[in-house]
């Protein structure tokens, strides 16, 4: 069966196509060359006047795993006003800040997203994260395994094990937890918090292991690089949310010795201490540094106003954040000599100085980082805002007038302390296509995603161009997933099961010897039971493993 998308205007940055009218042909879930004249076209969509992009990719969204599920359970009041009824093709669920897995999958697809990546999968909790992702329909999934706070790794660093051994461990974690990348959250800080340490800057030492975040970052970045894991080390840095943290962020960028590194939700790490309130924007300096260091990529973690919930592995800073919980409830968990998690509901208020400035800082970063190939559009769902706000965020980036209108409604002191009003930049459709498609696919090493060239997976989104970009991106006309029409006019019309992207980096199996000993002695789980078998992902015929090559 061949589908023809006829006459649409294509934005396909990976192939250098910027708003060119061209036909696209789909067969067996893939994009194909224009078939022979004789070939039968089974279905043609007349897309004259429509905008075509590949399916969007969310590189950082908390959609599955322990802390997300704890947040769901904790917040019945969050779901109450957004019930989702079952239909003849879709299951029931609920939405808002922490939607049910089923609803999350549908809503992503309805917004034209076809791949979502869970950025904080604890190896100890990986099985559940995968089970939740398996119940997230339509979209492809993948996850980054959390390292850098686990006692095994810190023991290795403390014992000055060589890089090769660390690489073996990192590769083993990737394989045994079925991950696509490695994330580090507050390097060493979650572990230090278990020893009652409340602050850990880049060169502070973990009180027990005597290792610094800097050493952890270098060691893990090196491992990710050496193993040929396409996505650079995904870093949630030190001092999240702490005024003045821009310095540790700048130091982190400098300190990684030129290795590739991805700094996530950098908005939360771009704060200065200027002004009467000792809270100011560090966006200009961060952006300047990112512009200068081509080894660095970032995602923003934009905040948007309203009620949401913060769910993070960073127990140290979630503990501090709990004083601002809204509503006043919060949870923390120390987890399995592995890491931890904290869930703190939060409401960002546009009239609150700090929140309003956070909003402005995120946008300043978007507008001051030059290269859209190294900056990705995220709200750190749900931490900055639920992912359903993306169309609104895109409008803020593409429409200066709208942005300035919004700016005029926020806390006056925050607005006047921000340079946002002076930033004229408006993102083009081409740049949006880069930062939501081509760039994340490239960063993650997904060669057949994020573009519309021959051979690519037919994950395609079709929009009607509209002056109001929120409207345009909120309800795409058509969304195709692996060549199947899954959503039309912003409603799911067909439910499929996405795959799970993973890697198979090489390692010396000898590492398992010390791991068996460690697991028996300390974790008290059998190593064989810790590992997630391939058939657990493909269980029930609902999932499918997509093994991405390492780049070596």
């Amino acid at each position, binding site marked *: 069966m061949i589908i023809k998308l006829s006459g649409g205007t294509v934005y396909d940055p990976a192939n250098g196509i910027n708003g060119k009218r061209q036909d696209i042909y789909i067969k067996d879930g893939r994009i194909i060359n224009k078939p022979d004249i004789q070939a039968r076209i089974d279905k043609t969509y007349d897309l004259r006047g429509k905008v075509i992009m590949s399916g969007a990719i969310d590189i950082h969204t908390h959609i599955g795993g322990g802390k997300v599920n704890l947040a769901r359970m904790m917040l019945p009041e969050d779901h109450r006003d957004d019930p989702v009824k079952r239909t003849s093709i879709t299951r029931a669920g609920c939405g808002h800040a922490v939607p049910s897995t089923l609803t999350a999958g549908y809503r992503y697809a309805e917004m034209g997203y076809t791949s979502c990546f869970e950025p904080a999968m604890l190896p100890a909790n990986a099985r559940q994260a995968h089970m939740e992702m398996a119940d997230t329909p339509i979209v492809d999934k993948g996850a980054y395994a959390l390292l850098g706070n686990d006692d095994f790794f810190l023991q290795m660093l403390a014992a000055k094990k060589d890089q090769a051994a660390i690489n073996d461990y990192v590769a083993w974690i990737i394989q045994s937890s079925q991950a696509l990348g490695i994330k580090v959250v507050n390097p060493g800080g979650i572990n230090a918090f278990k020893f009652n340490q409340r602050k850990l800057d880049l060169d502070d030492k973990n009180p027990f292991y005597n290792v610094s975040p800097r050493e952890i970052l270098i060691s893990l970045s090196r491992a990710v690089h050496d193993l040929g894991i396409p996505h650079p080390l995904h870093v949630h840095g030190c001092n999240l949310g702490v005024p003045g943290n821009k310095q540790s962020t700048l130091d982190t960028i400098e300190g990684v010795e030129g290795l590739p590194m991805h700094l996530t939700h950098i908005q939360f790490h771009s704060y200065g201490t200027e002004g009467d309130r000792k809270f100011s924007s560090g966006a200009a300096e961060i952006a300047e540094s990112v512009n200068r260091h081509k080894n660095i990529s970032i995602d923003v973690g934009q905040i948007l106003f309203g009620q949401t919930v913060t769910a993070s592995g960073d127990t140290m800073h979630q503990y501090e954040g709990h004083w601002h919980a809204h509503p006043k409830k919060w949870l923390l968990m*120390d987890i399995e000599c592995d890491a931890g998690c904290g869930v703190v509901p939060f409401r960002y208020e546009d009239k609150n100085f700090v929140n309003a400035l956070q909003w402005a800082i995120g946008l300043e970063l978007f507008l001051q980082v030059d290269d859209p190939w190294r900056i990705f559009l995220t709200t750190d769902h749900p931490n900055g805002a639920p992912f359903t706000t993306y169309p609104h965020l895109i409008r803020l980036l593409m429409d200066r007038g709208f942005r300035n209108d919004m700016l005029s409604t926020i806390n006056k002191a925050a607005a006047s302390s921000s340079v946002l009003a002076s930033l004229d930049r408006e993102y083009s459709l081409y740049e949006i296509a880069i930062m939501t498609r081509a760039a994340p696919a490239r960063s993650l090493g997904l060669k057949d995603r994020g573009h519309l060239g021959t051979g690519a997976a037919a994950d395609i989104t079709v929009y009607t161009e509209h002056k109001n970009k929120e409207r345009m991106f909120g309800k795409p006309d058509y969304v195709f997933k692996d060549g199947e029409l899954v959503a039309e006019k912003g409603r799911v019309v067909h439910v499929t099961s996405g795959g799970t992207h993973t890697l198979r980096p090489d390692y010396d199996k000898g590492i398992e010897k010390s791991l068996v000993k460690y697991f028996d002695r300390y974790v008290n789980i059998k190593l064989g039971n810790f590992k997630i078998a391939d058939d657990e992902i493909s269980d029930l015929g609902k999932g499918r493993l997509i093994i991405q090559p390492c780049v070596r």
Partner: protein
Amino acid sequence: MTQDTNSKRFEEVPCPFCSLLCDDLVISQLKDSLKVKQNGCKLAKTRFEENQPRVSPTIAGKACSLEDAIKEAAKILKRSNQALIGGLGTDVNGMRAALRLTEKAGAVIDHMHSNAAFRNLDVLQNHGYVMTTLAEIRNRADLIIFAGTDANTNFPRFFERIINPSHSLVKINKKERQLVYIGDKLDSAPAGKSPGKRPIKLQCEQDDIGEVFSILHALSVGLEIDKPTIGNIKLSQLKNLTELLLKASYGVIVWAPGELDFPYAELTVQTITEIIKYLNRMTRFAGFSLGGSEGGMTATQVTAWQSGYPSRVSYARGFPDFDAYRFSGKRLLETNELDVLFWISSLGAPIDLPDWRVPSIVLAAPSVKINGKPHVYIPVGIPGINHTGQMVRTDGVVSFKLKKLQNSEHPGVADVINRITEAYR
């Protein structure tokens, strides 16, 4: 069924029969029978080794084909106006199937032990808490307080696996570990055998534990209490314990919601979680809850990710509707607000069917004792014996893949329910 004449040996077998999910069992199989060779507690031995007779599905007590039983179950559910999908003694896939059926049948879903679970969930939803997991306790805790549970009676391997480890990461001097018991009828014998300090025992009624923790909380804050004794406990004892709380490097309070078995025990749980939160201002402290057996924690987790709510969800209006009070399965049974009861017990819990004349559909392992007469009875396989599956441990973090040890002619819960859902038209 394959007939192996030779004995088979399975190692690293996870045990699904309590929520500790010990995964180090060694089990041998000879012909049809299983034998726990190493590392099984009494419950594991009973359930793994229990004879599972071959039985037929029945309708109104008469043997029938599986297909007829499935059709009948679908028919009854279709006719129902308010069904309860209860019991939920099953694995992740069983829960996925149960939720799909609940949605289709517009029923209410709730686990047999949710009364216990909601003692914690109420606190989570209203205030939140600070918790920890097994390996953290094993490696870090220097003060462990057992609140209303001895951890031993219902979780016999807790001490062996967590309290008395051969090694610990943080090199807590084992002799320095202090155990404290607060509550009634607690068996502190295992603590006596532990290498740590002499355990402290504070005897009080279970429903006075909340007041004891409130006092400890007030004392920790530095406020004076003017009553010299609280039940059998002297204020001086509580003052001494307060010193220990404040001095601990990593303190843990363990409770078992199922053993705080009195009305409104969530309020007691909250006194525990609130003092833990407070102590975290100065030092590190965390809670640990022992519960969620018979698939309870698994049911809670799967229901939460698919519906957004932990349990006690009604799909009567087509969307998940949560009410911890009205959609309690126990309450619905007591008030007779049901017209069909659908009950799942594949892990061994006995079934008490209500005596009123409401048709019941029972999916149970063949060995499960049923008190009452189910209208439709379908024998099912046991997860972790007859089929693989996944289950979630008591801390809600770690889950295991269960092994298949033995063939069974009985299908698994997920399989049966999915067929009922298909037949429901």
